[in-house]
C-alpha cells in the first residue's frame, strides 16, 4: 500500500516534470527579445552632458523606485536622481525592492509611496509583467511615471532607457573590431529570466549572425548577477571551449575582469556597464571596451522628465540614452567616463 502511494507520487511528479519540459519548450507568448526600442529621441553623449533639468514650479514630492540598492548600477542611478532633484528644487524619496524576483515587495512599496503622497515617480520595474499593477496604481491616481532601466508592459509610463537590444548589437560590432579575425568566443549572459540580459544576448547573436559569419558564439552560460557564480561558470565553459579567441559579457561583473584566469585574461574582453573597478580594468588592459549603461542619466534625465511633466511641459515619450562612444583605455578618464561614476563618499539616502 505504502509502496503504491509512493510510486504514484513520484510518477506524478515525474510526469509533471516531463510535461513541464515539453510545454516549456514552446514557451508562453512572451516578450519579443529581438526588437529595439521605439525611440522618440536619441540624445548623444554631448547632448546629455549639456542637459540641464528644468526648475520645478513648486517643491514636488518625487519618488524613485529602485529594484535594489545592492550594486553600483543602482546606487549610481540614485545619485543621478538626487543630483537632478537638487538642481530642480524638488524632494526625492528613494525606495528599493530586493532584486528582480520581488514584484510583491515593489507593489507594496508603490502602495506605501501613494500612502505617503507623491507627485511623480521615476520607476525601475522589477518585472516586465509583475510590475504592471504598481504602474496601474499610479495611473489610477494620474501620477506621472517615468520608467527607467528596464521595461514594464504598460503604455502608460514615459521612458528613459538604454536600448538593450541595440547595445547587444553594438557590442558585437566592438567585439569584431577587437578580434578582426573572428573565431570562437564565449558570451557570458546574465540571469536567464532577466529581460535586459536576454535582449542584449539576442542583439549580440543577431548581429553576429547577420554581419560577422567568421565569429561564432560557442557558449553563452547564464548566471545570476553574482561575480563568483559567473567566474565558476566561465571557467567550466573554458574547459569545454579552450580555443576561444574573444570574450564578451552583458555586465562588467560577470565575471570581474581581473578575476579571469590566465591565459584567458590576455584575450580581448568587451563588456557593458562601468564602475571604478572596471575603470581600473580598462586602464590595466583587462577590458578593451565597455559600453556604459548611463545609469546616472537614467536617474538624472528621469527626474528631469518627471519635473518637466509636472511643470506642464511636453516631454518626449521614449528617450534612448546613448551607449556610444564605448569606453576604452583612451577615454577611460574623460568627462563622459566620469559621468558613469559617483563620488566614493556618496551614500544613497533612502526611506
Amino acid at each position: 500500500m505504502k509502496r503504491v502511494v509512493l510510486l504514484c507520487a513520484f510518477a506524478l511528479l515525474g510526469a509533471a516534470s516531463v510535461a513541464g519540459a515539453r510545454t516549456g519548450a514552446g514557451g508562453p507568448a512572451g516578450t519579443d527579445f529581438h526588437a529595439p526600442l521605439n525611440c522618440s529621441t536619441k540624445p548623444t553623449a554631448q547632448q546629455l552632458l549639456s542637459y540641464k533639468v528644468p526648475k520645478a514650479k513648486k517643491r514636488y514630492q518625487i519618488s524613485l523606485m529602485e529594484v535594489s540598492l545592492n550594486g553600483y548600477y543602482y546606487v549610481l542611478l540614485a545619485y543621478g536622481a538626487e543630483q537632478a532633484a537638487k538642481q530642480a528644487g524638488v524632494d526625492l524619496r528613494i525606495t528599493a525592492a530586493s532584486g528582480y524576483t520581488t514584484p510583491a515587495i515593489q507593489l507594496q512599496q508603490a502602495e506605501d509611496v501613494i500612502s505617503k503622497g507623491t507627485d511623480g515617480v521615476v520607476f525601475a520595474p522589477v518585472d516586465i509583467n509583475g510590475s504592471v499593477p504598481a504602474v496601474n496604481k499610479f495611473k489610477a491616481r494620474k501620477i506621472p511615471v517615468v520608467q527607467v532601466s528596464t521595461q514594464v508592459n504598460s503604455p502608460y509610463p514615459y521612458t528613459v532607457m538604454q536600448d538593450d537590444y541595440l547595445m547587444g548589437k553594438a557590442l558585437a560590432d566592438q567585439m569584431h573590431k577587437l578580434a578582426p579575425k573572428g573565431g570562437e568566443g564565449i558570451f557570458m549572459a546574465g540571469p536567464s529570466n532577466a529581460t535586459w540580459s536576454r535582449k542584449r544576448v539576442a542583439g549580440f547573436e543577431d548581429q553576429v549572425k547577420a554581419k560577422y559569419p567568421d565569429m561564432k558564439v560557442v557558449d553563452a552560460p547564464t548566471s545570476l548577477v553574482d561575480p563568483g557564480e559567473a567566474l565558476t561558470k566561465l571557467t567550466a565553459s573554458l574547459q569545454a571551449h579552450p580555443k576561444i579567441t574573444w570574450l564578451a559579457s552583458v555586465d562588467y561583473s560577470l565575471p570581474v575582469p581581473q578575476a579571469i584566469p590566465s591565459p584567458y585574461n590576455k584575450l580581448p574582453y568587451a563588456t557593458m556597464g562601468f564602475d571604478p573597478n572596471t575603470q581600473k580594468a580598462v586602464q590595466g588592459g583587462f577590458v578593451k571596451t565597455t559600453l556604459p549603461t548611463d545609469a546616472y542619466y537614467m536617474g538624472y534625465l528621469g527626474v528631469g522628465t518627471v519635473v518637466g511633466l509636472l511643470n506642464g511641459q511636453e516631454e518626449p515619450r521614449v528617450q534612448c540614452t546613448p551607449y556610444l562612444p564605448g569606453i576604452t583605455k583612451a577615454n577611460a578618464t574623460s568627462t563622459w567616463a566620469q559621468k558613469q561614476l559617483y563620488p566614493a563618499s556618496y551614500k544613497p539616502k533612502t526611506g
Partner: protein
Amino acid sequence: MKTLRRYAGRGITTLAVAANLQVLAALVALWVVFSAWEPATFFTGNNSLNIARQASVLVVVALAQMFALLIGGFDISVGANMGFSGVVAARIMIEHGGVTVGVVAGLLAGALIGLVNGILIGPLRVSPFAATLGMLTLLLGLGNILSDGQSVGNLPASFSQIGGSDWGRIPSSVALAALAVALAWLVLARTRLGLYVYGVGGSRNTARLVGVRVYAYEIAAYVLCGLFASFAGIILAARLSVGQTESGAGFELLSIAAAVIGGTAIGGGIGRVSGALLGAVFIQVLTNGLDVVGVGVYVQGMVTGIVIVAAGVVGLMRDPDFLQRVRVCVPARGRITDARWLGSTSPR
C-alpha cells in the same frame, strides 16, 4: 494523551493565550509608535487598508507553514511552491481558458508538492530540511522551464477578482485570507485531524503508543501546508496579475518568522491560528511602518534581522524555565529544549 489534550487547538492553554497577548501588545505598541511618528500617513484608513492587503498573502503562507511546524517539521519550499503554483495556474488559464480550471490546477499542484514532501519526511524519514530544500531547488527549475524563465502575463481580467481587485469595499485578498484563517481554524480546532496533528507534533511517541497513525497525519499536515501555500501563491499571482516562478522568494523565511512570532513552536505541538495571524500582521505593520516613516533600506534589513532573533528569544521567554536557564546558561531539560531541534524535536 495528556499532551494531546493540552495542546489541542480547543484546549486553550495559558501559554498560548499569553503568547497571543504579547504579540497583540507588541502590535499595538508598534502601531502607536508609527502613528505618533507619521500621523498624517501611517494613521489613515487608506494605509490600514494597504497593510491589510499586503498582509493577506503572508497570513496565508504563515498558516501553511504552521501546519508543517505543528507536526514537528518545517517547509522551506513554500516560497517556491507559491511561485510554481502561480505559474501552473497562469499557464493553464491562458491555454485552456477559464480561471476556475487554472486555480484548481494551481491548488492541485500545491497539494501534490505537499504530498511528496510529506512522504519523504514521514515514512521515508528524510529530514524536513533536506527534503524541502531539494523540493525548493527542483521547483525553481521546473517553474522556470514551464514559464520559459519569464513572468506569465496577459491573464483573464476576472482573475484579479481573487486577490487583485476589491469585492465591494473589502479587498478580495483580505476576504480570501479570512477564508483561509477560518478553514485553518476549523481543521485544527474542530476536527480529529487537527487534534492528531497537535498530538503527533507534541509527542510522536505518545501519539504512536495510543494508536495514532503517525505517518498518515504527517503526510496530511504537509499536504495541507502545500495546499495553503499554493492558495497564497494564487492570491499573489492575482495581485501581481502574473505567474512568476520566483515571486514567492523570501516568503519561506518570512512565513516561519511570522509563525514563530505568533507563538508557534519550532519543534511542533504548540501554536494557534490566531497567533500566526497576529504574527503575520506584526511583520507587515513593521515593514509598512518602516517604509512609511522613511527608514533607509539597509537599516530596514538590519532591523528585520534583529526582530527575527528577538522574536525567537521572546518566544522562549514564555517558558517558565527560561530565566533559570539563562542564569545557568545551560539548556534545561523538557519541552523547550526538545523543541530546539527543528523538525526532529519530539521527545521519544
